């Protein structure tokens, strides 16, 4: 089974869960006066769940017919030989993004961002740290200044133990 059909299968399953939530768990929370309404909070989700299952099944069963296989271009990615691409790098970068999300508050913006930029380029194979670290620091300070001072959105610059 091709990847697009697997996705359709997951989508149909997702719609079933969503539909279950809409059909069986939402309505009894509704206060009585709202039950006289012709439209309930669950009405639209119910429609979507039914439509989603229908469309998902169309893709899953290939009713529409597949489009002719076009030859993949050199710059596009063919997931069937994912192994020849730099999956590891991409996964580590995603991990870095998660780490950034978790560390942003505790470590403060400046430390987290500089770390993210330096680590990111290291993962990609950059070894000229004497260039990378100053560039990352400058960019971090620049963005922090822009966001904090120009846009007026608070970003805590330093780690939690240094106050704010």
């Amino acid at each position, binding site marked *: 089974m*091709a*990847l*697009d059909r697997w*996705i*359709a299968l997951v*989508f149909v399953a997702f*719609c079933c869960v*969503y539909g279950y*939530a809409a059909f069986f768990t939402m309505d009894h*929370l509704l206060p009585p006066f*709202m039950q006289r*309404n*012709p*439209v309930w*909070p*669950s*009405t*639209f*989700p119910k429609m*979507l769940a039914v439509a*989603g299952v229908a*469309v*998902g099944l169309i*893709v899953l069963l290939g*009713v*529409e*017919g*597949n*489009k002719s296989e076009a030859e993949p271009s050199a*710059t*596009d*990615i063919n*997931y069937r030989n994912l192994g020849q*691409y*730099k999956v590891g*790098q*991409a996964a580590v*970068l*995603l991990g*870095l*993004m*998660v780490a*950034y*999300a*978790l560390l*942003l*508050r505790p470590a403060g913006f400046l430390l987290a961002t500089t770390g*993210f*930029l330096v680590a*990111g*380029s290291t993962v*990609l194979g*950059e070894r000229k740290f004497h260039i990378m670290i100053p*560039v990352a620091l400058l*960019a971090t300070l620049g*963005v922090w200044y822009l*966001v904090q001072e120009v*846009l007026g*959105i*608070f970003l805590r610059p330093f780690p939690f133990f240094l106050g704010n």
Partner: protein
Amino acid sequence: MLEGILIGLEAAFSIQNLLMVIAGCLIGTFIGMLPGLGPMSIIAIMIPVAIGIGDAAAALILLAGVYYGAIFGGSTSSILLNAPGVAGTVATSFDGYPMARKGQAGKALTIAAVSSFAGGTIGAILLMIFAPALSSVALLFHSAEYFALMVVGLSAIAAFAGTGQVAKALMMTILGLILATVGEGALFNMPRFTMGLMDLQSGISFITLAMAMFALPEALFLVLNPARGAGQGDSGKIENLRFSREEGKAMAPVIGRQSLQGFFIGVLPGAGATIASFLGYAVERNIAKGEEQAEFGKGSVKGLAAPETANNAACTGSFVPLLTLGIPGSGTTAILLGALIALNVTPGPRLMVDTPEIFWAVIISMFIGNLVLLILNLPLIPYIAKILAIPRNYLIPFILFFTLMGAYIGQNNATELLILVGLGVMATIFRFADYPLAPLLIGFILGTMLEDNFSRSMQLYRGLSFILERPMTLGLLVLAAFLVLLPSFRARRARRRAEGVADGD
């Protein structure tokens, strides 16, 4: 209209807004040139900045400038590197790249800039004529018609997705609509599908979704496949920006035709710049005679002018449904719509009545934006093109950082970043399987409005009878069904015919 133009001139010609246009165009060109970052990603990245400005007119002017700049930047990388940053400029590389290979890169860029300018300007004039007319019609619409109209828009986007892709596009649209139901709706004040998480109470932020759908997968693709977007050789020296008088004469009718054609294709939901540019290229190649036709694909002036004019005119055309009906026809206008709503402006027929200064300032700024691109960016191109030399080891972490920042600034919530990464991985898998992502975002952005209008008409008519009682609603819904079913019907007939031929043999 004259009054409106004057209001617009007054608003657009403030120092602040002029600077916005210039900054927007420059930033757009700068980032748009990077392979892989299309206007959608760039606008998504710029939205927090635009919202930070606070003034809706200024923010929209900035974003419109970024949009134009990005398209122009995309053409530049198509011409110089044969690496189109955007699908809409793929057709540009057919003739632009051969021209650059012949050492006429400067001329090709000028032709691209002039035809973009002409396409954008003529498109803006058409927008000025058609938008007020359409919005006066749209004022007659009730919520039932709006609901039907949005259904038509969403089906049209799916229908234009291409053969074999309609069901996938519909699936993505429905997923977008489903994602839009997360959180607390305006009509019911009841949290839905939040799974008890406080962070989902206000729903998924559309900036996060836009970043996750476009910017993040692009960046990941750049990581996965280093060949993608890598400059093939150096771009060479860019000099001699002029084209001859004869070439100008050859271009003029092409520009005239393609501005009109591109604009009207752009107005259709879902069609947009990509189809306009390919169609423009094909039409001009068919019209051209003999020698000129043979020239196409080998560096023809006409072949470069046609897609460039058409895609810019189409971009302007796509503002018509956005500004008059509040319904975005493309991913980019969907992002703009989200930005407008965040700025407390509701696009739609009331926009021209309630806040004419915003409407007209945007239109006037389109003219200014095109002018800025022509006179300011063109001479700067040889310098801006240096950005293509930034090593990807530096570039990619920065792109990722900007997507993270964009999602964080909007909500000031670190959980949003985790949602971003999750949705981004999902979007990347969708792209592996060739699912179109723009319908998802458009569905998400229209979802709330669609449900509100649907619920309102249900309440007004105490049930589904509004479909039968309002002929226009019924007509639009039938049209929507027709749009969805037509492509598969045609594909089936074509297949049957093909099979019949095979049997006959």
